[in-house]
């Protein structure tokens, strides 16, 4: 086994991890702000993939699908927060989890009714078909694009959170929502926006994953488990944790797939169990809140 093969597999792992990072990020930001774990996150990821596919075929361009699907599904997420989740603030922390679980049933079955139960192929955009010669081997152009796009999205998110006034409100709101209300910030509107952002990120993950996985109504269930594993390893509510753990899981999956393919689906769960035994709060988690 030569080194270049391992490096190519490492790149594959990073591409896989990049989608995981985006998806888990949505989950973790919503939890950090609202204290809600969105069980419909996987279903919304799947709907994002379908929306991207539909919009791409409608406009004839993948790029419109990539741009519009997260925005539309994000707006749909805000509707969900406004109509359903909002009623559960102040009740048991289990209630939003249960409600969104019921919601995922509705969403998955709704997609089955509209698009059918069979998988649909998601064509790779023509500009990104084929492979690029990296000197040591050939790597799919699309996967390189995914890595680059996720890096840009992460940078924009980080700059918004750390350097802008809006980011300041969001970070302060995560620490102490009551004080923010006293200071005259409409925290309900912040929560609405954050929930929309979280769902939008899930949809973006769905569109990006589309050409790499097959698009079918059940694709969200594996993604949900993966996103859970990533957020648990990274520490629920931690953005840095989601990034590090997402890349860690992606790379371990593709590395193990190289040496022992039958273990590839199992390795991330084993990784999670090990992390939990050593650090129950996750790599970057704050002790007390969850463990």
């Amino acid at each position, binding site marked *: 086994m030569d080194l270049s093969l391992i490096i190519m597999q490492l790149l594959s792992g990073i591409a896989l991890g990049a989608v995981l990072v985006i998806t888990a990020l949505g989950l973790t930001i919503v*939890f950090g702000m609202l204290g809600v*774990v969105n069980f419909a996150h996987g279903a919304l990821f799947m709907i994002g993939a379908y929306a991207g596919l539909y919009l791409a075929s409608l406009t004839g361009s993948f790029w419109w699908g990539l741009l519009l699907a997260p925005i539309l599904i994000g707006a749909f997420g805000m509707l969900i927060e406004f109509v*359903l989740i909002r*009623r*559960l603030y102040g*009740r*048991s*922390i*289990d*209630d939003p*989890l*249960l*409600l969104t*679980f*019921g*919601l*995922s*049933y*509705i969403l*998955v*079955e*709704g997609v*089955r*009714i509209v698009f059918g139960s069979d998988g649909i192929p998601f064509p790779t955009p023509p500009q990104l078909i084929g492979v690029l010669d990296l000197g040591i081997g050939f790597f799919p152009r699309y996967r390189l694009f995914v890595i680059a796009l996720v890096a840009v999205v992460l940078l924009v998110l980080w700059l918004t959170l750390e350097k802008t006034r809006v980011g300041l409100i969001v970070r302060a709101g995560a620490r102490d929502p009551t004080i923010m209300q006293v200071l005259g910030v409409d925290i309900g509107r912040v929560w609405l926006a954050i929930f929309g952002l979280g769902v939008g990120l899930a949809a973006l993950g769905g569109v990006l994953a589309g050409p790499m996985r097959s698009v079918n109504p059940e694709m969200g*269930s594996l993604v949900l*488990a993966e996103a*859970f*594993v990533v*957020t*648990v390893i990274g520490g*629920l509510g931690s953005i840095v944790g989601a990034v590090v753990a997402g890349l860690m899981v992606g790379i371990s999956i593709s590395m193990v797939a190289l040496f022992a393919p*039958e*273990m590839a*689906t*199992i390795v991330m*769960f*084993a990784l*999670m*169990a090990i992390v*939990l*035994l050593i650090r*129950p709060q996750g790599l970057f988690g704050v002790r007390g*809140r*969850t*463990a």
Partner: protein
Amino acid sequence: MTGPSSGEAVAKASPGGFSWLLEQRVLLSVAVLAVLPWVLPSQALAVNVLIYGVVVMGYNLLFGYTGLLSFGQAAFFGAGAYFTGIAIGRYGVPWFAAVPVAVLLSTCLAAAIGIVSTRTRGIYFSMVTLALAQLVYYVALQASSFTGGENGLRGFTVDRINLFGLQLNFLDPINKYYVLMAFAALAMWFQSRILNSPFGAVIEAIRENEQRARACGYDVERSKLIVFMLSGAISSLGGCMLALHLSIVPLDILHYQTSGMIVMMVLLGGARSFFGPFVGAASFLILEDVISLWTPHWQIFVGAIFVLFVLFLPKGIWGTLLDALRVGKARP
């Protein structure tokens, strides 16, 4: 979902016939289950209510009484079924020995998952149990030489059972129902004993206020692990019953959708009530039966009904009914 006092405690404090009735909950529940095949539209439905009722009852110990929302109960339901099937089909163990062996092995699995997951709290616990149960699912998928992989486990059929010299045809639905009901009765008796024991009070104390339970000197972590194992053991018995009933074990039984279904059932019926799980299992299965008569997309309705229950009826059908009865009887 968490109220100031446990419903059972209120009933015990109140005088009158209602509390006496509640003390006979095992007998009453068995009596209701005994007439089930004659009341429900089909005997197949009755058997399923029995099986899922036991699984959900075990889960209720964890979620309803201890307040731990696990999304991984399918692992133990499935483990009970797989271990029973493998013991009978591969090792030729007689069925009456296969069931205790399967429950024991499933309890060991619950111990392993419990050691990792009970280190976490709150929502973390839900996510970790879901992930670890998915691990069990993928292991069963990969270990196809043992489990049959995607096709499920086949090749074990219990068609005739010898009950102390009495030969019973196990393929006869009524015989099968009452044999399985004996298992359900055993599980109910066991669960009732747990709830009436001092340990039962400890787990309810943990649900109401974990900090205070710890301050009182109870070992919260150990109690959680024990209740996780007990809950897994009872749910795995439901899995054994399923294996004996179907003579196959579908792989889907281990998927987290099954865990979700168990959660739905306990909430529909009423968490923290003794008979609620059976009411929940019956309502869910009847709903599925009725709706799938006129549309294959029954899940959309079940999902919507579940959402409405979370929003407006968090105590479930049986829990709300019991509350209404108590208001009428206990407080004049």
